[in-house]
């Protein structure tokens, strides 16, 4: 048998690389956003905001590429599942980029020397590193079509959720000083942004399972937390 549709396969493969490459942009944006929060670096925060145009641009490019492939190549079966999944993946990439922007936008609100509390900043840092690891892992799982690795994201995400609850507790304990309370509330919002990035990574993991199995199932159903996770 001769292999056919080589051009289409190359196009699809490039489109996937381009979409998953968006995750690398997210990792960079996340690292910078975390650093800007940690060091109250307003300039770095503004760079994160400006650079989000690159992630938005990537979204538009992949989106257009998907439309063209659908219109011109009419992919079916496994190829169709990849294309449909990439549409979700790139949307999550764009949302993760937006969360980094949300984090960066909070930085200038606290001035140059906010009444920061190191233990809370450490928690945020740990959350951010955990989220960054998940962003990398969801991309690897998708590229390798590794459902097990994708499902492991749920376990990873539980760590973020636990850290987020800890951030909340610590923030409540920071006392009555108005500036300090405001800063602590901003940290809670930062924690919320990171927690959402973790969720987006899990969502991309679910797309991996969809590509491999043809079935879409949420790894964890937030509205029915008692229900056992799906088996693939």
């Amino acid at each position: 048998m001769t292999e056919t549709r080589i051009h289409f396969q190359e196009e699809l493969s490039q489109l996937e690389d381009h979409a998953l490459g968006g995750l690398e942009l997210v990792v960079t944006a996340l690292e910078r956003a975390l650093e800007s929060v940690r060091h109250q670096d307003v300039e770095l925060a503004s760079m994160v905001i400006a650079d989000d145009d690159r992630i938005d641009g990537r979204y538009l490019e992949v989106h257009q590429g998907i439309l063209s492939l659908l219109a011109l190549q009419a992919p079916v079966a496994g190829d169709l599942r990849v294309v449909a999944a990439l549409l979700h993946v790139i949307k999550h990439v764009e949302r993760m980029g937006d969360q980094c922007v949300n984090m960066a936008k909070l930085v200038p609100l606290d001035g140059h020397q906010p009444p920061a509390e190191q233990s809370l900043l450490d928690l945020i840092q740990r959350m951010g590193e955990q989220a960054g690891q998940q962003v990398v892992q969801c991309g690897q799982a998708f590229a390798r079509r590794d459902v097990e690795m994708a499902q492991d994201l749920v376990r990873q995400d539980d760590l973020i959720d636990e850290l987020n609850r800890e951030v909340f507790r610590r923030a409540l304990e920071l006392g009555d000083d108005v500036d300090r309370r405001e800063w602590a509330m901003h940290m809670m919002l930062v924690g919320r942004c990171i927690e959402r990035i973790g969720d987006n990574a899990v969502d991309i993991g679910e797309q991996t399972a969809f590509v491999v199995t043809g079935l879409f199932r949420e790894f964890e159903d937030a509205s029915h937390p008692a229900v056992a996770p799906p088996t693939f």
Partner: protein
Amino acid sequence: MPHSQAAPETTMDDTPPVEISQHKVAEQARSDGKRDDRKIVREAKTVQAEAVNLYYGDFHAVQDVSMKIEPNKVTALIGSSGCGKTTFLRSINRMHELTPGAWVKGAVTIDSEDIYAEAIDPVAVRRVVGMVFQAPNPFPTMSVAQNVIAGVTLNNRKMSKTERQEVVERSLRGAHLWEEVKDRLDKPGAGLSGGQQQRLCIARAIAVEPEILLMDEPCSALDPLATLAIEDLIAELKSRYTIVIVTHNMQQAARASDVTAFFNLEGPGKPGQLVEMASTDTIFTAPKEKATEDYVSGRFG
């Protein structure tokens, strides 16, 4: 299910061949000189193939195909050239055996009646199971109207002028052609466009009131618009018939069918086999077999 050998078209004994299903009643009524004016309640039929093997002499063309073809659904048979899908299609109305040396092993039943049973008349089978061919093939010397009733008159059925007009109009309306040709029913059928000619052939097929319609690449000779018109027609016809369509156009199978069966052969000279049969949605989004996936994705030629 016992395997049966195809009965030859002419039997040596004196037992008359048995007509199948409701046509038996209609034939009987006609032979009594009474008009069968009961309203025909149309019921599409279920076709069941059990371990069907098809041969051209020594050549084993199709191996062990078992499938159930549901009524009021469009079933598409897809697969590369030479995989036996057309041969299998032709076994459903006993046209396969018309090729010299061709023979059948296995059973094909229509609503539980074995169409290869010795007592069954192949002509009666073909009356119940209509066929539309790849290239539009209206009879060139006949008018549009004569083409439509050709099948009916070839079955030696005598019709009054009014009845004939009724059949022509009903069939042409059924084939979505009436409005386009009602003013030129006496003109040659060959003068119509390709798409119109194919719809004329569909009108001819449904004029004999079959329950099952077989279509062998009915759109392969048509332009895209005529193709879409035929696909619309197929979607409408399935409410009254069981439809089986062979197509090389996978997008057509995706658009026009409810169920898709993928045929493949292991290699040149090997018999064609049924690889996978499932809802068209499943075949084109998440097929189970890798061979199906590769074929529908166009990954291997």
